[in-house]
């Protein structure tokens, strides 16, 4: 299904790195150009985050559509693509999700070669811990669902968890660890590199990445989209795909649509760099806490939403206190480590915690959004499916269920059963 990578003029390689270093690294070209917008394109992708750039890359590489512009209001990759905790996994229980995320994980597994860019995809494993018999049963339901669909999953008991992650307080008084579900193929990737890698690959195939170009309107004519109004003027397009995590409702409003989406704040944290301590990604069901260690050595962790609609990217202390309490409860030796930085992103929270990649009632207008806090791992799969949907004006089987109509039809994809309460998901 993947197109063969075309030869890229300035391919990266160890040899090249060496020869460039001998000429003081003067020969490297910009990873992507800074072109002026053309009057019109076949496809305009709104949003220069991971999903938008991936969409452009797959439009060009899989579908041969290269007359494409990605328009981004700021510099690329500084929204959620540059603010996440870099976790990659496909450990979903509902088939509509598993199908999609597993395809995304397969793309991750070949991404470096596809992009000729080391995105540091590291399959160090994702371990979901559970804390009671009933949580174990619900987790086993998910793991077995994955296995039936051909996705890797293993159920670990207490002792296996202890052996794999000795730093965990297995006998935590309020949340004793009963075991865990391990997906070994899950892991982390370097978020910025994913953005830059997709940008470079798309650019080399002719895609125009237009930064500092904010979309202010979606121009329609007779029920059909004809282009976008931007801060750099009108740009015509036969098709427009929107992938603007955090701001999906605003773009929808420009097109006269109203979505089952609320924007919420999610905070993330990184500690000072330390020598290797936590090898895989670990998530704690009960304490609302997840953690991994970056290659640089920082512990990267996060938890729940702040819990109210927000576009502010400013975190608040109650969540911080709760999260640090969870951290020390689960990993007591974290207590003396220092947290270096905190940041926050805006999540498009849908009413069932699952995303949409779909057509809209307006011809030629496509939406990709509602990623809640799971957008990063979806990046290649989302771009691939969105490109397919735009190119064919019809979804692929991987994203056929990820519609907006599912809410109207009562076919929600609600993994946790939290219902239409974004703050509770």
């Amino acid at each position: 299904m993947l197109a063969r990578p075309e030869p890229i003029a300035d391919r990266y390689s160890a040899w090249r790195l060496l020869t460039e270093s001998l000429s003081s690294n003067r020969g490297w070209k910009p990873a992507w150009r800074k072109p002026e917008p053309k009057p019109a394109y076949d496809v305009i992708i709104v949003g220069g985050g991971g999903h938008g750039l991936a969409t452009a890359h797959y439009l060009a590489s899989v579908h041969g559509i290269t007359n494409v512009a990605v328009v981004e209001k700021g510099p690329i990759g500084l929204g959620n693509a540059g603010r996440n905790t870099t976790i990659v996994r496909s450990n979903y229980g509902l088939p509509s999700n598993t199908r999609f995320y597993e395809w995304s994980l397969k793309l991750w597994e070949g991404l470096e070669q596809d992009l000729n860019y080391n995105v540091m995809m590291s399959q160090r494993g994702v371990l979901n811990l559970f804390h009671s018999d009933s949580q174990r049963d619900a987790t086993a339901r998910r793991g077995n669902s994955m296995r039936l669909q051909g996705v890797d999953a293993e159920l670990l008991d207490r002792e296996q968890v202890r052996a794999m992650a000795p730093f965990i307080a297995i006998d935590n008084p309020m949340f004793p660890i009963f075991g865990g579900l391990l997906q070994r193929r899950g892991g982390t990737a370097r978020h910025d590199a994913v953005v830059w890698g997709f940008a470079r690959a798309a650019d080399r195939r002719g895609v125009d990445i237009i930064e500092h170009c904010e979309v202010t309107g979606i121009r329609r004519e007779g029920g059909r989209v004809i282009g976008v109004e931007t801060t750099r003027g009108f740009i015509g397009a036969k098709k427009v795909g929107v992938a603007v995590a955090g701001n999906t409702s605003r773009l929808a409003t420009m097109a006269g649509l109203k979505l089952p989406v609320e924007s919420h704040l999610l905070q993330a944290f990184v500690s000072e760099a330390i020598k290797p301590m936590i090898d895989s990604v670990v998530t704690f069901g009960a304490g609302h806490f997840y953690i991994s260690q970056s290659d640089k050595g920082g512990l990267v962790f996060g938890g729940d939403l702040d819990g109210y609609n927000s576009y502010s990217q400013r975190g608040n202390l109650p969540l911080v206190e709760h999260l640090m309490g969870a951290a020390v409860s689960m990993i007591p030796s974290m207590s003396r480590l220092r947290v270096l930085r905190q940041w926050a992103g805006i999540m498009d929270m849908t009413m069932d915690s699952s995303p949409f990649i779909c057509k809209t009632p307006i011809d030629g207008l496509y939406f990709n959004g509602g990623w809640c806090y799971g957008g990063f791992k979806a990046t290649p799969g989302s771009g691939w499916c969105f490109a397919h949907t735009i190119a064919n004006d019809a979804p692929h089987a991987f994203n056929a269920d990820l519609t907006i109509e599912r809410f109207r039809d009562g076919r929600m994809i609600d993994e946790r059963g939290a219902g239409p309460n974004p703050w509770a998901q």
Partner: protein
Amino acid sequence: MTSRRLPAGGLIDRSKTIRFSFDGRELSGHPGDTLASALLANGVRLVGRSFKYHRPRGIMTAGPDEPNALVELREGARREPNSKATEIELHDGLVSRSQNRWPSLAFDVMALNALAGKALSAGFYYKTFMWPKRFWETLYEPLIRRAAGLGRAATEADPDHYEAMHAHCDVLVVGSGAAGLAATRAAGEAGARVILCERDALVGGGLLICPQHQAWHAEMLAALKALPNVEILPRTNVFGYYDHNLLGGLEQVADHRREPGEHEVRQRYRTFRAKQVVLAAGASERLIALPGNDRPGVMMAGAALTYLRRFGVAPGENVVVFTNNDSAYETALALAEAGLGQVTLADVRPQSELAGVVAARGVQVRLGTEVAGFDGKVALLRPRGGTLGDPVVADLLCLSGGWNPNVQLASQSGAKTRWDATLASHVPGEPVQGERSAGAARGLFGIGAAAHDGAEAGEAAATAAGFQSKPGFALPELGRSEQALAPLWEVKAPGKSFVDLQHDVTAEDIRLAHREGYAHIEHAKRYTTHAMATDQGKLGSLVGAAILAEARGEPVEAVGVPTHRPYTMPVAVGALAGHTSGAHFQPVRRTALHDWHLRNGAAMQPTGAWLRPFYYQKPGETGWAPIFREARAVRSAVGICDVSTLGKIDVQGPDAATFLDRLYINSFSTLAVGKCRYGVMLREDGIVFDDGTTSRLGDEHFLVTTTTGNAAPVLEHMEFHAQTVWPELDVQFCSVTDQWAQIAVAGPKARETLAAAVEGLDLSNEAFPFMGVGEGTIAGVPVRLFRISFSGELAYEVAVPSSQAETVWEAILAEGKPFGIEPYGLEAMSLMRVEKGHAAGPELNGQTTAADLGMGRMMKKAGDVIGRVLASRPGLADPGRPRLVGVRPVDPAQRLRGGAHIVGEPGSGTSLGWVSSVTQSIEHKCWIGLALVENGESLKGQRLFAVSPLHQESVAVTITSPHHVDPENARVRA
């Protein structure tokens, strides 16, 4: 190693000696020293290795900006990696180690990285390590991870404690230099409640190294001490500025000692809710990029002055001071006055008003001069912009590239920063919250200027907080105004010029990032990792931005600075957690019978917020034995169980019945007084929300019960609808969960047991039938009785005022003794509910409809019901959806697994549903389960397979009714 301690001077107590160790070497210092000053006094020059190239590094600063001197502090469970030697107060027995080196600090194998320097340019890892594919996880990445990461975390739980304290004040002042002290006093004298936070152990900031203002400093401290409305918090760093004028801080209560005293916290997390804030956090001196600017022996000029004056330590002998501004002249002068060796001052500016003054004291002044390289022994001086240089012997190179106001907190508050061309730096812009900056924090340098500005800011803050200001205290003279600095970011010459010392980012790396298109400051920062280390780029962030600006051909201000976010200084995770971790992570709820359970061998387990008995273990019992014993007692005789955790909501009013009719899919208006009924409520989206029995105690009086987990959400749901959707309904309700303990008495002998205990109520089947509700007394205590059953046996629930729960419980136990009554726990209850086929948490999982659970027919024909409309959407009304059924293994010896999937054939990948709950049935003597299976209704009697690939198990099962015991429901009516 010779002592570098000067014969006199400094704010240290020379009468006392403190012993400490660094890399196993026993050294000594004095109270008042930091680890850094003590190391310098002992002649230790090499203190660490850098992140990437493992280059040798020395002490660079005297404060939180320190990029190099990071150590592992303390040992064992108290080990703290990456501790800044410049911030550690020396204490007796202090143990410290250098980090990121192997095998030793002096000889580090990884320093070979430096040889490959150019190939390890910014972002090199993005361009390689891609072949062969699997080598990333197995080879490259483990090597990278091992090499990175600085110090080692402790491996044990932290033995220390932390606490949180929340303060309110009229004016919060951050920083206690001249500006902060003056602001505090001005606001304090105006009558405002003021809190002054100072990061340092000593109050005074820049005054601590200004001998000429000693008297004013002392007078200010005395005056502040006399103000009862002023609180001064030393060792307290304000780390974040949040919404609604709330600031977060960290007080280091006991870090200056070896370990905290008994019952003393190590650190205190503080929040400050301030009406007004004065930010007087001073300024940070910035680096100049030049080859060798990372060598041991390079130090910021201000830091050198601090070591001389505050700690009485000579940071070097022969010194070159390189500056573009006036401030470093004081360092040069102080060094010359200390009489150590030759002091040379290189000023890039062509002229300086101070040149004559310092030259007269022996400083060799070279104007229009720059330093083009330093190797730790010799500095290369040359005319500004020239090519040829002359070597000057120097063991210390002091740098001053100007000063950046500490705008972090102002920026975090939401205020935009503004570029000040005179300072070549960012200063705070228009405030958006109740704050103002003062002194050096807004670019006003010099003690006099800062003091005057601070007094004005304090006065203004007090006025804004509603106080009439009348400050009347003396301020230092304004002093001479400084000569303008000459912006200088980099001296271009061959060699590595660093802009970020901890992450080994060079000026060339920044230019490479630009060449490769990472020209936005955020891209360049992320590509090179510039300004992302534990020093947060305080020294070189702006230098890197300026070099990027030059590459872009734009002025520095066009580049902007990365957004400031918490934390101004890194904060211990444990401090932010406070006491709310481990056993105290959340409040624990205990029932009124908790102590009885503990006395009687209960294995207590957390379930949500509650602690509940899982079973009562008797000597010799293992595994399922106690659970079977308890369940058998109920099935064959009688058992007693604490069910107090169920939510109980008392509902009253003329419209109570109407209200409940809208909440539940079935009717309560038709319920007779003295009866109870099982009810199901939906969310508005048509999914099952909760279930429970509701009793009618009077015409206008109901008692609702909820599941344990949903007690609070159901009450909020009821309040929302009563208050906002149907305010016209006359109904009142409140939670009575804690007021009533509830005791289930179940089993064929339940009636006989209770009949002996209860007075005032006829328990015969005729007088008190199934679903009856009545009142009586037990042991003289008034009780309510409900004839309801979760186990499937003849059963009652007894509600008793919580304070008398144990009396009633004991009375029932006593009457049940002849029948062999057994207390039973959650596990036995769960076993019996699966046998009986009652849906519980695993089935009411937020994904199921009433019809899925076999309760679709409960929906009343007409009337407004929450969830009715959306439950009829096609996806939810689909008859093919998974339905609740029972499953039993065809071979009774095989075990069932919760979470197994139901498939048609063992090898099939098509799931028809899943097993939601399992137990070992005492009635069937095999595993049984409940499952949700597509078209389950029509599959009854059929043979399918329960597969658990996670366990490599496949079990042939028969689909049955969910009611594994007594499907006719005869027992409960007996």
